[in-house]
């Protein structure tokens, strides 16, 4: 009993003494561990299965709708690396969808209620595009004509959506990892207050950021893209429709001074209902001449006319 070790143990640090008696044990019963493992597996299966099913539905919808549409167009891409246009494919596509009047309520149909505009930008490798509609953000591989990802815009809480206008633009960084969604109170006002959200294209996570938090890899013209106004008296090899909007969305200026971007075109019937819309890839030369190519026509064939 006169062992000094006994007394030494009695004066050990309070924390390890307390933890030994009242802390969590590392051991679980075999039963509770098995139960926890089984529950985790079930949850993973449920989530994974649900996502897979949803994803398949989206892709199947796209492909099915695409196959129903007649017409043939050349989808052209601009290679930022090679600094030239190249034709991706001569694909059977239809017109870009008719835009319905937007419903301010939440609509769970992915391809319904898409809002009045599509904005998008070509990836640096010019094989995929990320674009937004009033419903969501979509990552589309137009070489393989596959919808790769979609993100429900309502999860983003982005103001301006679902208000009948192309309320957001999107930029993608050169690495293809991030996209920035921009939403502004007044798209016609360069000084308008805007909100930015950083979308991680690898996992779909969205973070609200301010301008200082946008990754440096983004194009320096990103914030100015929607301010661009092509001159109406510029020479061109193709006349633009009268409804040519005054700004390009999501445009990019390469090192040669060419501006590549998208514009959306909307026509409404006398009741104000949108009856046709289109999105085209536009390439504007430094001398302000420009060419256009209709793209992404096959995505929403239910609206085609």
């Amino acid at each position, binding site marked *: 009993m006169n*062992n*000094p070790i006994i007394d*030494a143990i*009695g004066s050990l640090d*309070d924390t390890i003494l307390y933890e*030994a*008696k009242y802390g969590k044990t590392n*051991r*679980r019963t075999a039963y509770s561990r098995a139960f926890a493992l089984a529950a985790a597996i079930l949850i993973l299966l449920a989530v994974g299965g649900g996502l897979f099913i949803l994803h398949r539905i989206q892709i199947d919808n796209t492909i099915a709708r695409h196959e129903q549409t007649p017409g043939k167009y050349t989808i052209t891409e601009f290679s930022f690396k090679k600094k030239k246009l190249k034709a991706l494919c001569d694909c059977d596509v239809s017109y870009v969808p008719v835009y319905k009047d937007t419903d301010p309520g939440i609509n769970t149909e992915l391809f319904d209620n898409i809002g009045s505009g599509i904005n998008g930008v070509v990836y640096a490798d010019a094989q995929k595009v990320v674009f937004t509609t009033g419903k969501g953000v979509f990552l589309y591989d137009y070489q393989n004509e596959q919808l790769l990802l979609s993100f429900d815009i309502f999860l983003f809480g982005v103001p301006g959506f679902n208000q009948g206008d192309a309320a957001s633009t999107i930029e993608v960084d050169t690495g293809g990892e991030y996209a920035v969604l921009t939403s502004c109170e007044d798209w016609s006002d360069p000084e308008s207050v805007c909100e930015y959200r950083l979308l991680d294209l690898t996992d779909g996570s969205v973070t609200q950021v301010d301008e200082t938090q946008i990754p440096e890899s983004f194009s320096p013209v990103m914030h100015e893209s929607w301010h661009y106004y092509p001159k109406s008296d510029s020479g061109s090899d193709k006349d633009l429709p009268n409804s040519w909007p005054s700004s390009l969305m999501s445009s990019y200026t390469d090192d040669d001074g060419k501006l590549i971007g998208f514009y959306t075109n909307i026509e409404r019937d006398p009741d104000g209902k949108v009856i046709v819309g289109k999105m085209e890839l536009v390439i504007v030369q430094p001398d302000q001449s420009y060419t256009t190519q209709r793209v992404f026509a096959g995505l929403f064939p239910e609206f085609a006319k």
Partner: protein
Amino acid sequence: MEDKEIIQLFLDRDERAIAQTEKKYANYCRVVAYNILLNDEDAQECVNDAYLGAWNAIPPHIPDILPMFLAKLTRRIAIDKLRKNTAKKRSVPSPFPLDELEECLPSSGQPHEPIDAEALRDTIQEFLKSRPKTERDIFICRYFYCDPIADISVRFHYSQSKVKTTLFRSREKLKKHLIKEGFYHE
């Protein structure tokens, strides 16, 4: 009442400190004492002495973790009582958990020189921190709290056999560690 409020009562020399301590920690202290003395009356006597010890110690001492302070106090008082009972050849519980720690002493049992208690404590603490958490916790439950093997096996979901084996190996390793650190020679 929160521990910090009880401590404040001690600091204010408010006698309600004892009542509140008893209200919150009476059973806790009694278990610590009983595990050593295995006698209700002796255990209660130790607990009362622990309250007095706390009253005398606070202030100037201010415990970081009040229950640990009380547990240490109670344990020390209980072990002192046990030693007195042994010296007076009164009956002592057998087997007694702390007797197992005799195995941590080399067969000669003789230290190199008088033991520095603080150094010994620090060495044992260093040893315990180097051990896996479960092994450390089992060791402390047995040799600080003097918990019965059966209680330890329930808490850690080990068989009693495994608890005994774990303790045996810990004692062997501690013995080697103390020899290596120069507290004892073989």
